[in-house]
């Protein structure tokens, strides 16, 4: 019993102040993929995405590339396949949302 008390005091408080103090993921962490305007709409990332959560839509000549975090498994294959450095995994991991629509990111081709 004494030993337990001693160890408990020695261990102290282990929990961090998160979310009051942000908890930054380490370098190399595979989090939220983001698409930048370097995108050329080549479609390579669509082909390699294992769960198929990247897609094209085309409406009156305007192309949109969308990615849904709902099904994303953060594998980083899109980043690997993109020859233009347009898609990158970030250290962001706080993705909770109330609707699925909020979990979609898109980029539109300029007319």
């Amino acid at each position, binding site marked *: 019993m004494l*030993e*337990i008390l001693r*160890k*408990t005091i020695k*261990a102290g408080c*282990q929990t961090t102040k998160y979310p009051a103090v942000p908890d930054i*993921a*380490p*370098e*190399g*962490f*595979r989090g939220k993929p983001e698409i930048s305007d370097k995108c050329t709409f080549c479609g390579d990332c669509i082909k*390699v995405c*294992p*769960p198929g959560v990247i897609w094209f839509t085309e409406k009156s000549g305007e192309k949109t590339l969308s990615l849904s975090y709902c099904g994303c*498994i*953060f*594998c*980083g294959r899109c980043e*690997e396949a993109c020859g233009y450095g347009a898609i990158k995994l970030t250290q962001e991991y706080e993705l909770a949302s109330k609707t699925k629509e909020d979990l979609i990111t898109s980029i539109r081709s300029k007319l």
Partner: protein
Amino acid sequence: MNANIESIKKEFNTNVLEVSTLHNETYLTVKKELIVKMCDYIYHHLDLPVVCIFATDERKIDGSFKIHYVFSEARDDSFIILRISIDEKNPKYPSITNKIASANWYEREIQDMFGLIPQGHPDPRRLMNFEDWPAGVHPLRKDFDIKTKPPRVDGEYIYRRVEGEGVYEIPVGPVHAGVIEPGHFRFSVAGEPIINLEIRHFYTHKGVEKLFENISIDKAVFLAERISGDNSVAHAVTFCQAMEKIAGLNIPPRANHIRTILLELERIYNHIADIAGIATDVAFSFGAAHANKLKEDVLQLNERVTGSRLLRGMNTIGGVRRDIGGSKDEILLSLSIIQRDFRKLMEHLSSTPSLMDRIETTGRLYNDIAKGLHVVGPVGRASGIDRDMRRDHPYAAYKEFNFKVIVSKAGDVHARTIVRADEVCESVGLIEQALWSLPEGDIRVKVDKIPDGYALGICEAPRGETIYWIRTSGNKIERCKVRDPSFCNWLSIEYAVLDNIVPDFPIINKSLSLSYSGNDM
């Protein structure tokens, strides 16, 4: 040719129709009428365990189904695979379950998935196709389209009944308190002691093996990785190894070292989590809190090393996708702190009478039962089964390192705890060796196309031996059989709880560390 094959040939001469050897796998095509005798001979006389039984639908090629019985020979790292042919018009074959108990679920699985009937099976009830699934619909047959939605039908599942004065039934599940997957446990008790337990699983069968046949090979590794969440690395590595064997690839030594490090990190966090779970289940919250803190330390180390707490996204056919992050020294330092704290924690646990009292002699799994059911991994080793794929069928870089295979004879919750604790220390040792000797060089070889062929992949996951058998054709997966360790181990719980009291069930269950999702694919 090895001595076993010679003696099988001598014993059964003309009944062995064809012999072919590929890598370390010898396939013997035999007459189906003789399968019971031959399996019995290999299992009892040559003393080789059956590690997997699976069927394939080869009607497109020669109009028949095939069943494969895989035996493992640890002495020379080889496999003997008996193969029988079953005609579509007469889809029956003799059951071997009466001779080899561990064949039980495999034969029932084949019956549901392929519609091949094991004649003389002692318990021919459905296993995975539930009673509301129409008769005659078998999902792994090639003519079953993956999009099929069969109509629901009426039916009933009959449980074994234990009757007598004062015998009560306690149904538990399939929905449990807490975030775990579904499974039904039906206890029969006479007073406190459990006199019978029947388990029922496969409530969320996902059709993973069918999915494999419908996705491209480069994406399949990510599917394998997600079969059993906390055994991700083991599944991914096993899948990749089978593919690399088919393609005849030798992966770079650095990749092999990295795989070894990942596999051992996975073992460490799983084993510590199991020990934390056991402490939780005996309400020893001090121990549980400290063990969970250690587990968190390992997960954070994983994150620094691979960018993923569960070590995902690292493996690929041909090696690993990225190098390990963090410096060698930093990893070694973190590990040595974790190991030091873990050792202290284990000392605490073993000097706490209230914990020891609950786990010693509890949930005993006797060696003969464990052997009969082919119980694998640390659970098997705690019941005296001296088997470890890292030593018996070495892969990755294990051949180059020294480690002990921990075996205990007691077979109780305590033994399973100790085996895991000692394995954690061995794993730390393995990672240290792998880091010290980490070779320079490439981490992957490029693979464009997988040739047609078939091969086994095998690996010692934290829960025990994991097996994949893959056949490829036209750069696609034709068949991918996945055998998770829990498929072998689940039935052991029906024996481990006997004569124990109901309140000890959670501890026994935890100590067996059974995966729902790995089993229920």
